[in-house]
């Protein structure tokens, strides 16, 4: 097994570009789509009401209280045109007491915009409700009251430590790291098909090397190189970019290991259906980007409610890995709490690996 492992490593040592690009890719994707660089996102707002200027001025002031977003007033036609052309991801149509979101593509930032706009409108509705009952201007009073409320809700875990607040950036960090790791492990598992077509696999079969050692060599290498990528990205985000990824890094790595095993098995299953590495390159990259979408890892938890999509998501390790990681990072849960998710991933891995290797062997015969 170690001879096969060495050969795979020696190849990557000669051509490390793919591995390096994928590591850089996961960091860049997280920073780009998760707003990791703390850049301010501009969101256009407009109104088509009779007193549009007044509405835009009022809500513009209220919305522009968040450091992450700048809400900018534009002409309705321009806002719609930008959405149509895909120049803007989201625009907010303002009404007297309501709003509508115009979305061109379902980017992760859209959820954050929606979250903020909803919060502002809800708060304003509450203030109006109080004003209508009490009469007079109570805004300042309420705002100062809210700054130092008599009752404060503090969520605590069982160990009496304060629960970390949900953070879409942290979720996206894991989502993109796992997405890119799926590509890396897939390309490495495809080495089995590549070496079969090249005749190297046959040379190994004729040698005293056992088949279990051959498979183990390829799969263990895929596992190790993928874990290397995940761990490097996590370390960069935790210690260099100061992302909050929780305190239990070892448990996160264990979850990532189970996820990697599960996905390697899925890649092996796909290998069982293809004859050439080129077929794998055509099928695998088409399937992989769909998994995070179905699993809802780019969205706020609970966004996907369709039972069919939820069922499909459960068939892949990603949904289980994200669920486990989110509970470890945000709620500080331990091994026992995420054990079911780990077992699901291992089960998926064992079944997919069994079927995959069986298909590969049948094809060889």
């Amino acid at each position, binding site marked *: 097994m170690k*001879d096969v492992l*060495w050969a795979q490593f020696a190849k990557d040592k000669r051509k490390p570009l793919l591995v390096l690009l994928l590591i850089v890719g996961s960091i860049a994707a997280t920073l780009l789509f998760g707003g990791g660089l703390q850049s301010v996102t501009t969101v256009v707002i407009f109104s088509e009401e009779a007193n549009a200027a007044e509405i835009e001025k009022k809500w513009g002031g209220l919305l522009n209280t968040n450091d992450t977003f700048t809400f900018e007033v534009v002409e309705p036609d321009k806002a719609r045109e930008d959405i149509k052309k895909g120049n803007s991801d989201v625009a907010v149509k303002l009404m007297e007491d309501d709003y509508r979101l115009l979305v061109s593509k379902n980017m992760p930032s859209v959820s954050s915009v929606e979250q903020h706009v909803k919060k502002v409108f809800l708060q304003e509705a509450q203030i109006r409700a109080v004003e209508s009952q009490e009469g007079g201007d109570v805004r300042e009073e309420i705002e100062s009251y809210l700054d130092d409320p008599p009752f404060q809700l503090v969520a605590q875990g069982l160990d009496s430590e304060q629960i970390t607040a949900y953070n879409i950036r942290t979720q996206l960090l894991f989502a993109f790291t796992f997405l890119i790791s799926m590509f890396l492990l897939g390309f490495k598992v495809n080495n089995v098909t590549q070496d079969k077509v*090249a005749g*190297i696999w*046959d*040379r*190994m079969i*004729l*040698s005293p090397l056992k088949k279990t050692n051959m498979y183990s060599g390829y799969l263990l290498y895929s596992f190790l190189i993928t874990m290397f990528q995940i761990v490097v990205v996590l370390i960069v985000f935790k210690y260099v970019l100061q992302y909050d990824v929780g305190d239990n890094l070892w448990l996160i790595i264990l979850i990532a290991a189970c996820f990697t095993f599960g996905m390697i098995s899925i890649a092996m299953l796909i290998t069982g259906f293809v004859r050439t590495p080129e077929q794998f390159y055509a099928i695998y990259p088409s399937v992989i980007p769909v998994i995070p979408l179905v699993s809802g890892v780019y969205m706020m938890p609970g966004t996907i409610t369709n039972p069919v999509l939820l069922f499909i998501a459960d068939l892949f390790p990603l949904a289980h890995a994200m669920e486990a990681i989110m509970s470890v990072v945000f709620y500080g849960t331990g091994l026992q709490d995420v054990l079911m998710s780990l077992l699901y991933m291992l089960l998926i891995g064992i079944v997919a690996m069994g079927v995959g290797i069986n298909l590969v062997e049948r094809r060889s*015969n």
Partner: protein
Amino acid sequence: MLETINLSKSFKGKKVVQDLNLYLADGESVGLLGPNGAGKSTTISMISTLIKPTSGRITMNGVNAIDKPGEIRSVSGVVPQELALYQELSAYENLKFFGSIYKLRGKELAKAIQQALEFVGLDDRKKDLVRTYSGGMKRRLNIAAALLHRPQILILDEPTVGIDPQSRNHILEAVRTLNQQDGTTILYTSHYMEEVEQLCDRLYIMDHGKVIAAGTKEELLRILSTEDKIKVEVNKLDEAFVEQVKTIEGVHKIEVTELQLKIIAAKGSSLISKLVHLTEKHHIQLLNFQTETPSLEDVFLHLTGRTLRD
């Protein structure tokens, strides 16, 4: 001794190899000759135990090698038709990997690599990446990878496909040395008649999955011992003339190329006088007339009605 008995292989109901009987005695050099698609590679794959036959037996010193593939695997080296090498690694690294899967370690491995590299003449380029090699050098390295564990039987599947004459000669010379000096048993497949003629003591000629002739070169040539091969050059050719030549008594086959006729006819069929008569009749001038000794290529043509490269 390695032997196959009524070996057959079918893929999706189509018989690719049919009732193949073949034997390889220790130290022998045996050629498996046939055009592309004749079933040579499938035969090699079955003999080297890579694929299981649909029916028939393979024995190695009397032991059934289908049930116990280790019997053949432990003593054989296989040079596949494809370049089974890691292009991203150097020649040395490739051989280190292929040697280590045969459990060679340390000094033993280093010595085996050095010998193999020297044997195929790649010692001075051992640190270069395989992808920078010429086609011929890759073919030589492909052979070296099969020699590391010093196999008693070397099975080569068209090892000279698509390479320059210099590398081809190098490979042929290397195989001859292995057979004659080291006593390695050789099973060599090719569709190049001249390679097999040069290297092999015995030949099996395959076509459409069947062995259509087997024996030493002399035995095979004897198939044509009752025939003459005559080459005729004329100043012009017309169809009527060719048709009339075909009707001459004793003529078995005619191959026409531009202004040349290759005629295979029964010995003593007084062909010459009849040909002269025909050329006069058709006002054709006879430029050259030559009787040739039949080659194995002619034997193949005689047996199948087509050339090896058809």
